[in-house]
C-alpha cells in the first residue's frame, strides 16, 4: 500500500519532468538557426521547396507557436517522435531497435563499477594511512581524471591491436552465425572492453565516495558502542560502518545514472556498439535533429526510471523512512 502510493507519487513527478523535457525539446528546435522545416527534414531535402512545404503543413509550422507546441506535445504523448528522413525510418523504431544494446552495456558497467567501487572503497577505508590504501586512492583519482573516450581508444590499441585478445568493434562477430551459448559468449567477449572502460570512471567515483562515507560513519558514536561490546573489528567494519556508509552511495548511484548515459555515448562511439549512444553520434554527423531530440528524450526517460528504482531501494534499505516522511 505504502509502496503503491510512493510509486504513484514518483510516476507523477516523472510525467511532469518528461513533459518539461518535451517542451524544452520544442523550444530547442525553435532556437536552432534556420528553417525549422529544414531541421525536421534533417537537411535532407533542403533544396526541394515542395518537400519543405509539405513538411510545414504536416507539422503545422505555418500555424501560431502554441498550436505547434500542442501538436508536438500530443505527438510525443502518443509516442510519435517523428520521422528520420536521413535513415528513412520512424525515430521511435530506430531507438527501440538500439535500446537493448545500450541497456546491456550500461547495466553491466553499472553493476561492475558499483561492486568494484564499494569493495575498493572499503578496502581503502580500512587501510587509511597504509600504502595499500593510498595506492587504491591514487588509482581512483587517476581513473577519475582520465577522459573516457581516450581510455577506450587506448584499450583498443593495447588489447585489440597490439595483444589481439579482444574484439574492438561491434556487438557480435558479423557473419559468424553464432547461435545459443556460442552467441552469448561472443557477445560477452565483445562486451568486455566497452563495459570495462565505461565502468572505470564510475568505479573511481564509487571508490572515493565509499571511502569518504565509511570514514565518516566510523566517527559515529554507535561505532564506539560496538567496540565497547567487544565486537571484532571486521564485524564492526562490515555490520556497523559499511551498512551505514552504503546509504549515501545508493543516492549517489541514482544521481550518476545521467552520467552513465553520457558515458555510453562516448563508449558506443569508439567501440561501434550499436546502441542509442552510437545512434546519437550518427544523428550528430548527419545533422538529424529530429532523431537527436528523440534520443535525448529517451535517455532522460531512462535516467528517470533508474532514479525511481534507486529511490525505492533506498527506502528498503533505510528503516527510518517507512512512513513516507
Amino acid at each position, binding site marked *: 500500500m505504502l509502496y503503491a502510493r510512493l510509486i504513484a507519487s514518483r510516476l507523477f513527478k516523472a510525467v511532469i519532468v518528461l513533459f518539461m523535457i518535451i517542451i524544452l525539446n520544442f523550444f530547442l528546435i525553435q532556437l536552432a538557426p534556420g528553417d525549422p522545416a529544414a531541421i525536421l527534414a534533417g537537411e535532407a531535402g533542403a533544396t526541394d521547396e515542395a518537400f519543405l512545404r509539405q513538411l510545414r503543413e504536416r507539422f503545422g509550422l505555418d500555424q501560431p507557436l502554441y498550436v505547434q507546441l500542442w501538436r508536438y506535445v500530443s505527438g510525443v504523448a502518443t509516442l510519435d517522435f517523428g520521422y528520420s528522413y536521413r535513415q528513412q525510418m520512424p525515430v521511435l523504431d530506430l531507438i527501440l531497435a538500439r535500446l537493448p544494446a545500450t541497456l546491456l552495456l550500461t547495466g553491466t558497467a553499472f553493476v561492475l563499477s558499483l561492486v568494484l567501487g564499494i569493495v575498493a572503497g572499503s578496502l581503502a577505508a580500512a587501510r587509511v594511512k597504509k600504502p595499500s590504501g593510498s595506492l587504491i586512492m591514487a588509482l581512483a583519482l587517476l581513473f577519475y581524471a582520465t577522459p573516457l573516450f581516450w581510455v577506450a581508444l587506448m584499450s583498443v590499441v593495447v588489447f585489440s591491436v597490439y595483444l589481439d585478445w579482444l574484439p574492438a568493434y561491434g556487438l557480435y562477430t558479423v557473419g559468424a552465425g553464432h547461435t545459443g551459448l556460442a552467441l552469448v559468449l561472443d557477445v560477452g567477449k565483445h562486451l568486455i572492453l566497452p563495459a570495462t572502460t565505461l565502468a572505470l570512471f564510475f568505479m573511481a567515483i564509487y571508490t572515493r565516495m565509499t571511502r569518504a562515507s565509511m570514514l565518516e560513519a566510523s566517527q559515529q*558514536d554507535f561505532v564506539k558502542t*560496538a567496540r*565497547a561490546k*567487544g*565486537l*571484532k573489528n571486521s*564485524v564492526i567494519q562490515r555490520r556497523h560502518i559499511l*551498512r551505514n556508509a552504503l546509504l549515501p552511495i545508493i543516492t549517489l548511484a541514482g544521481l550518476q545514472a545521467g552520467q552513465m548515459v553520457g558515458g555510453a555515448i562516448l563508449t558506443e562511439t569508439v567501440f561501434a556498439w550499436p546502441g542509442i549512444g552510437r545512434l546519437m553520434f550518427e544523428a550528430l554527423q548527419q545533422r538529424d535533429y529530429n532523431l537527436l531530440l528523440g534520443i535525448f528524450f529517451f535517455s532522460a526517460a531512462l535516467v528517470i526510471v533508474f532514479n525511481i528504482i534507486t529511490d525505492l531501494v533506498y527506502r528498503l*534499505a533505510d*528503516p527510518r523512512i517507512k512512513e513516507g516522511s
Partner: protein
Amino acid sequence: MSDPVLSIRGLTLALPKGADRRYAVEDVSYDVHGSEILCVVGESGSGKSMAANAVMGLLPKGVRATAGEILFDGQDLLRLDEKQHRKLRGLRIGMIFQEPMTALNPLMRVGAQIGEVFEAHNRLTPAERQSRALELLIEVGLPQPEKAIRAYPFELSGGQRQRVMIAMALALEPELLIADEPTTALDVTTQAQILELIADLQRRHGMAMMFITHDFGVVAEIATRVCVMREGRIVELGAARDVLERPQHDYTRALIEAIPGNHIPESRYLDPPAPLLEVSHLHKVFRSRGGLFKSSREVHALDDVSFILAPGETLGVVGESGSGKSTLGRCVVRLERPDSGTLALSGIDLSSLKGEALRRERRRVQMIFQDPYASLNPRTRVGMAIAQGPIANGVPRDKALKQADQLLELVGLGGVADRFPHEFSGGQRQRIGIARALALDPELIVADEAVSALDVSIQAQILELLEDLKHRLSLSLLFITHDLRVAAQICDRILVMQHGRIVEQGSAREVFLNPQAAYTRELLAAIPGREPSLASA
C-alpha cells in the same frame, strides 16, 4: 574494605602534539571497589573521561599512556593487546555513553544490537540471545518490551534508548560498569528515572561502578565516593558525604557553591503600575508540510499563553524540551510569528508586524543566545559584531564602534574589539553576546538558555554579570531555561510550561517552595541532589 575491582595507579596520558596541554591526565590514582559507585566529577577539559577510555582501551587517536598502570583482576590493562582487551570489553567491563540519540546503530533492530553482545563473546544460540535480550529489556523497565525488541532506535525516545544502552552494558553481568555522563543529554524527569534505574541495578548486581559527570547534583544523588578532577589532576578524593558537606579543597568548594538553587532570593516583585510586556492568548502551531501524497502533522508549540512582565522584572520560563518555552521566546523577539494572540510591548502590538515596520521595532527586544560558539559570526571582529546593530539603525560607524568598546568594557572585556570570536572562551563569548544585546538599548532582553552550555563555575559568573547589569541598567529580562535551580536564583517570578501551556506561575519562592501544579512538583522532585541542598538553605 575488600580488594578493589579496578585500581588505577599513577596514570599519565599524553595528548598529541599541538593540543592545548601536554597531558590529558597526570599522575591519577584511584580505586573502584565492588558494590560502590565512584563518581568522577569535573568541568569540561578536566580529563574526567580519559581514564575510563583507557580502561576500555578506547582512547582517542593520538592519546597514549606514558606512565602508571590500570589493574583489573590482577592484570595491567595498559599492557593488553587489542585482542585481549576486546575480550574484556562487554564481558567483564561494560560501558554506557552520553548521547543515547547517536549511540545506537540506526539501521539495526534493538534486539539484534543487544544480541551482538552475546555474539561478540560466543555466548548462547541466536534464539537464546533474543530471549535473553527480552529479559534484559524487561529488567531495564522498557515499556512494551516485546515490541521494543523489534523496534529500530528511531522509534524510541531518548530515555528509552538509554535504557537499551544499559541493557546492553548489563547483558553479560560485568564486574565493572562505566557510565560516561549517561544522563546529561536527557530531560530532568527522564534523568531522575535513569539515575534511579542505574543505582538500583548497581545495587542488585553488586557491580563496581565508575560514574563520570559534571553535575554535583547527580553526585549527591548516587555517589558512594567522589573523585574531583581539574585540568587532568585529582583535586579531591573521598567519601561522598565528606566531600559534599566538608569539601577540603577551594576548587571543590567553589564548584559546590556555584550550583544554583542553594538559596532563593526574596522576590522584589510588586504590582507594577503598567506592564512592560503583555502577552495574551498566544498560539503557535508547527505543521510539517504534507505533499500531494503525504499527510501533514501538527504540533501545538504554544497553546493559549498569557502573562505580563513588569518593567525591571526578571521573569523565568521553565520547562523541559518540547514544552514550547523556546518558541515563546522566539515569538517575543519575533523570530517566529505567532498564529494568533497579541504581544504588546509598552502598548504596541508586535505580533503582526511585518517587513519594514517589524525591522523598525526590532531594536526594542533583543536576545541572548544559548550556544556561545554559534552566536558570533566567525569572520566578524567582535567590536563590529556589537556595532552592526546601531549601524543598521542609522548610527554613524565611528560612533557605533566607540560605543561597542564601552559595552565590552561594561561586560568586563575591555580593549578586545579588534579580535575575532575564535580567540575567546565560551564564557567570554557569552559576555560579548550580552554586550551585543545591550547595544541597541532595548526595553526587554530575552535570554534563551543563556547559561546552559557553560560549565558551572562560568555559569555562576555570567549569572552574576546579568544580575549586576540588571540593577545598573534596570533591565527587564525574560529568562528561558530548563534548569529550575538557575531560574530560582535569578528570577523574580517563574512560569512553568508543559506541552505549550503555562501550568503554573508565581513568585520564584512560591513556585520553588510551595508548588501548586503536579507537574511542577514532579520537576522539582526530579532535580538530582535536591534534598541536601535544601537542607542547607
